[in-house]
């Protein structure tokens, strides 16, 4: 029981620190990440329920959610000031790269979705 209490305490502390220390821009990206994750889960659950036909459409939609998630996470990492030393990109360049990758991703998704 104390272990559960410990875990709950840690989670609460984590939540507080997250709310206070992360800048607003990153919180926005985090909210977007949670939304994309939810859509991915919904798509996968639908596939499990209804079946995989047509497989290419399911794959295309699911990979689209995973791709958006990964790209947004990468953008968040690159925009985080704490990571300035590992990455040598300005925030504008990071966002431009993000848009470039998204164009490629969505062109392919639209082609694959049948």
């Amino acid at each position: 029981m104390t272990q559960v209490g410990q875990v709950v305490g840690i989670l609460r502390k984590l939540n507080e620190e997250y709310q206070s220390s992360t800048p607003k821009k990153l919180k926005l990206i985090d909210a977007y990440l949670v939304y994309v994750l939810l859509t991915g889960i919904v798509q996968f659950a639908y596939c499990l329920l209804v079946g995989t036909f047509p497989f290419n459409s399911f794959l295309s939609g699911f990979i689209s959610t995973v791709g958006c998630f990964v790209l947004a996470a990468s953008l968040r990492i690159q925009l985080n000031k704490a990571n300035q030393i590992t990455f040598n990109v300005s925030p504008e360049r990071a966002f431009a790269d993000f848009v470039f990758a998204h164009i490629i991703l969505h062109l392919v998704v639209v082609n694959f979705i049948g």
Partner: protein
Amino acid sequence: MTTVNDNTSEYITNSSSSSAGLKSLITVIILICVCISGFISRLFSIIRFESVIHEFDPWFNYRSTVYMTDNGFYNFLNWFDDLAWYPLGRIVGGTVFPGLMVTSGTIHWFFHMINIPIHIREICVFLAPVFSGLTALATYLLTKELWSKRAGLFAAAFIAIAPGYSSRSVAGSYDNEAIAIFALIFTYYLWIRSIKTGSIFWSSCTALSYFYMVSAWGGYVFIINLIPVHVGFLLLLGRYSLRLYVSYSIFYILGLILSMQIPFVGFQPVRTSEHMIAAGIFILLQAYTFFDYLYNKLRYVRNIETIFFNLSIIISIIVFAIVVLLTYTGYIAPWSGRFYSLWDTSYAAKHIPIIISVSEHQPTTWTSFFFDLHLLICLYPVGAWFCVKDLNDERVFILLYAVFASYFAGVMIRLMLTLTPCVCILAAIALSKTLDYYADAESSEMVSNYDDSVSICDEVENDENNQYLDNNAQNIDETDDNDDDQNFLTSNIKIIVVTCIAMMLLLFIVHCTWITATAYSSPSIVLVSYNSDGTRAIVDDYREAYYWLRQNTPEKARIMSWWDYGYQIAGMSNRTVLVDNNTWNNSHIALVGKAMASNETEAYKIMTMLDVDYILVIFGGVIGFSGDDINKFLWMVRIAEGEHPKDIKENNYFNDNKEYRVDKSGSPILFNCLMYKLCYYRFGELYTDSAQPSGFDRTRSVEIGHKNFDLEHVEEAYTSANWIVRIYRVKKLSNRFQAKDALEKLTSSLSEESFEKNDGKGVILNKPHVKKGTKKSMRRT
């Protein structure tokens, strides 16, 4: 002494501002020379013969490219080829890697758009040499990222002429490897670049280059397994960084969906074991990054490191267990035969004889490594050791590439091609580091060393010089083991070493050019032999026979031959073939093999079932050509035995001494089989050598055992000038009454006895007998 110092330091400051410009000028000039030399060294067969497509596989690629330029891209993607694999046909759009055809088609379209009317054949023939220049540039870029620009220039020069690469990219060798090696190295360069910068842009470019590689060659599996293994090793070595997360995740997810756009690849990236390592590492990396993020927030919690470490291990075990479960239940296909036989080399011999019968799939001999790589194979471990000593993220990659490529090159001779870029890069690194010590004569360190050595030689007069002398004496004692200090390298030693290295490199160039000229420049479709006085005799039998087929057979005629020649027949004669080099249907090939290995009557049954009109065999006994069908015959028997073990047994074709011989001691079953009869029909009347009896087979160097036989169900249609290609026509079913029997019956019925039997009346042959009371039935006799 002081004046010498001043002059040299002035020289250094003056040149540093213009040296950058000079350096880049020299770099560009060297790279241009490298591209030109790579292009030129591949043109031997064009100069000796003509601009023609070589070998077997390129003929299919050429035919597809012609189809694409004639009919457009969408018709090519949806093309159903009914000239191949009669009666099955082949869905070309879904069974071919379109990158090669699309590349040539694009170049063709571009040139025609600017009104330069190049024929598509010229583009196909010269595509490989042009791309070899691009490969050299990509290797330069990759080595520049791994080590330095100087090593990059060496690597570019090496790969431009290395025989391991030029063997598959001579002019006329219009095959997937021509563009695939360029795509491979370029993808690796972009991957190293994206790991070093952690930028989303470079990762997306890596994914696009990977897409080009997937469209080009089935060897893309190498990339999609090597990069995840690299990521895994970096995690194990504790070199995790956020750059790694960004680059691999974006590369994987974009690469995944891009690779599924190729119809031939289809859904394999999510359904086969070959792609599961990449997926597993992707999931592991997501989990690892998440834990890393939490760890940074939760540093104060006790034992947080062990908790996260254990969680990572548990997650990897769970993912591995899920993959194993899915493979076991059949959702994920196991490793396909082609790739499994790289791991278990005896697998193909037992189960899939057609994989092991291909000459390119044989194990590599020791001499091939030196033959294909000469000096580089000796410098290769040295370069690997230098990378191990100064390890960083990208050098882990090249070391993993080296390990895996070395293993694969040892398994299959065809995979020497994937080893060659790695060997070129590491050998260039070794050479560059060596020459950094011995050829660098302009640094101030070197100047002061020179001055010091001058001062040693000079007369020692004042204390200053004495001091230098003492210091030098001490330094020489200390620095004997320390190779960073260069006091002991006088200019004499440097010159000697640099000269030796230059001589070795000259020998390397001579070797590469000689190998490319003699061993790898034969077009296989045109043979050459040399007369006793040295003049050339061109043996053009193949093309002669294929054009005879094209001009003298009906358009819908079906040709039966061994699968080696299928692409060439379809490409040059434009006729339907039964089996070709695609070898996707083992049963069909086994049926053809059974027909070749059975006696004439059995073979005739198979041939009528398959609607065969013509048979084509290759026979080299007249000129001593050793690549003919009699030498390949045992493979036909083995493949047929794999599918029809009751009818065909390999031991039947050996003589009593368990040897495969065609002379008098050969087995009678061999003498009666279709292949033997077709090859040696009328050969018994031919004198190939004045000193030998008639029917002397110059390839096997024996007199054949079974001569002067007749063919019952086939007739000879064409034999080429040197008897290399022999074409036979399959006779239609014979008439109902045999002519001989009818004559006998007629003469017997006209004889005295039958007259008396029939009371002096004549007799009608086969007169139907009327049975009273029953309907007269039209009986067919």
